[in-house]
């Protein structure tokens, strides 16, 4: 069997999302096969990322500069704040290139069963940020799951006394989507959220 070093590598790889013990073994062997072209550059990249990338203290995004490039970008609209559960959601919105406001990353969703409460998500800090700044609109872009919608409802409630408009992302027919391929829940959500043309 593999030596202790390789076992340690496999066990660490197996902790990555989407990888189990078998795929971790495959990945470890692949890295060992491509030691010069892949393993060393990857190790270097990991080391650099571990020391230089930080969570932005303003919005929670990951970047090598503090505040992050998005928070420093003067061309962005200070009056709109989009609240997302995690950095992956922020990246998804940035890829779509349809939003030019500021962000706030919660770092999770309310989940009593997982022991994550409002304090763990820094909701007080978020409320302070909305109170202090020039924010006029808050967009809640949490996932369309029970935890995502509970978190959105909770935050909307906490912001209700402030002078900001609060909105949530629409749920319904995806662009280019055909009704025949949609599940019943999505079709009903789209019907409820129908709009005038």
């Amino acid at each position, binding site marked *: 069997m593999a030596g202790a070093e390789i076992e340690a590598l496999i066990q660490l790889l197996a902790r990555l999302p*989407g*990888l*189990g*013990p*078998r*795929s*971790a073994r495959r990945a470890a062997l692949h890295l060992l096969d491509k030691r010069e072209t892949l393993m060393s550059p990857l190790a270097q990249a990991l080391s650099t990322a571990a020391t230089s990338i930080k969570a932005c203290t303003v919005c929670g995004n990951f970047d090598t500069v503090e505040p992050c490039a998005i928070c420093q970008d003067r061309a962005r609209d200070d009056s709109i704040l989009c609240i997302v559960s995690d950095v992956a959601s922020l990246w998804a919105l940035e890829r779509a290139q349809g939003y030019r406001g500021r962000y706030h990353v919660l770092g999770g969703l*309310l*989940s*009593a*069963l997982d022991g994550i*409460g*409002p304090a763990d998500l820094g909701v007080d800090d978020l409320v302070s940020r909305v109170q202090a700044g020039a924010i006029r609109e808050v967009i809640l872009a949490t996932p369309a799951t*029970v*935890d995502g*919608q*509970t*978190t959105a*409802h*909770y935050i909307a*409630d*906490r912001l209700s006394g402030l002078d900001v408009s609060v909105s949530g992302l629409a749920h319904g027919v995806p662009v280019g989507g055909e009704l025949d*391929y949609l*599940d*019943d*829940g*999505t079709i*009903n959500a789209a019907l409820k959220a129908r709009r005038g043309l």
Partner: protein
Amino acid sequence: MSRVLAQPEGLPGRRLSIRRLTLTDFRCYRHLRLETDSRPVVLTGANGAGKTNLLEALSFLAPGRGLRRATLAQVARRDSAGIWAVAAVLDGPSGRVEIGTGIEPGSTRRALRLDGEPVKAGDVAGLVAALWLTPAMDRVFMEGASGRRRFLDRLILAIDHGHAAHAGAYDHAMRERNRVLKEQGADPGWLTALEAAMAKHGVAMAAARRRGVAQLDRMCAARQGVFPAARLALMGDVEHWLDEMDEAEAEARLTKALVQSRSRDAGAGATTIGPHRTDLDVRHAAKNLNASDCSTGEQKAVLISMVLSQARVLLTEKGLAPLMLLDEVVAHLDQTRRLALFDELVELDAQSWMTGADQSLFDGFEGRAQFFQVADATILNPVADATNIHKETGNLTHEH
């Protein structure tokens, strides 16, 4: 032909039939490949041979947790490291498809494939409709309401695929609320958010049950023959509110009731109001008796009535005859009822999968069904005739 046995016309290909079933590391099966035609399937064999496991494998092709409500890890064969697969070639209204499910290496989540492509549960929810009866359901009228709710929700899920999503979301929000209520100084804003989710999904659940029970009640009440007519009624606050108000008003009322019950629920450690407490009242129509007061045999007959009626609801509403998985159902029926059941299954044009220890239980079904003998997690052979068991391999292959 009685009225309830009349079939909708002009619905070609309405039967759902398994043409090939392949199991890998599922329960007692290391590997099994079974090829069938579209007729009903009878599996015979001794206790513990693996008959119910085959039905359970088929039940995993439909939405939900299968007929034993087992966890994904429980159905994996021992020594299989938790990896298992159930795959089938299926003929249905949209033609022939290959559908597969299981746990793939490196994952703990159930994967679904349609014609070789990964798909989400919602993409295949309408593809396989299955109804089942197992010996574990025999006491459903005698025991607590939770079993009847589960039975009802399962029947409804076969026709209303969104029902499971609402039920799951409601249950999740309720467990979250119960946990928050346990904490000292529970955040009222958090509770409000969870109660809003419970109200939204709870009322949707209750509305689906009302629609489902109304359809099933009509079909059950019209039954004639040896499986008795039955009347069904929902007993639940939210379902009753929907008699008098629309869903938006019911949501507001449930939200208010949940807010008012916070201190009581905190003390009880459980949510004391909501559709998770609903019960299903079932009455034997001719005797005007609650099903729980009927004899054991009559209770079984009422259960069969309900499942056959729901198959007819599916046929009428969706033009689809579901897979019928009937585990050890004939063993406790007298000869008249057995023959009536065979006749109705054939007339329903559903591919039913039935199990029984003894081949003679299926006398009268020869020629109309295909027989297989199961022993030690192996299909010994397709049995050409119920009285003549050959140990030959026909159009079926297996490895063990």
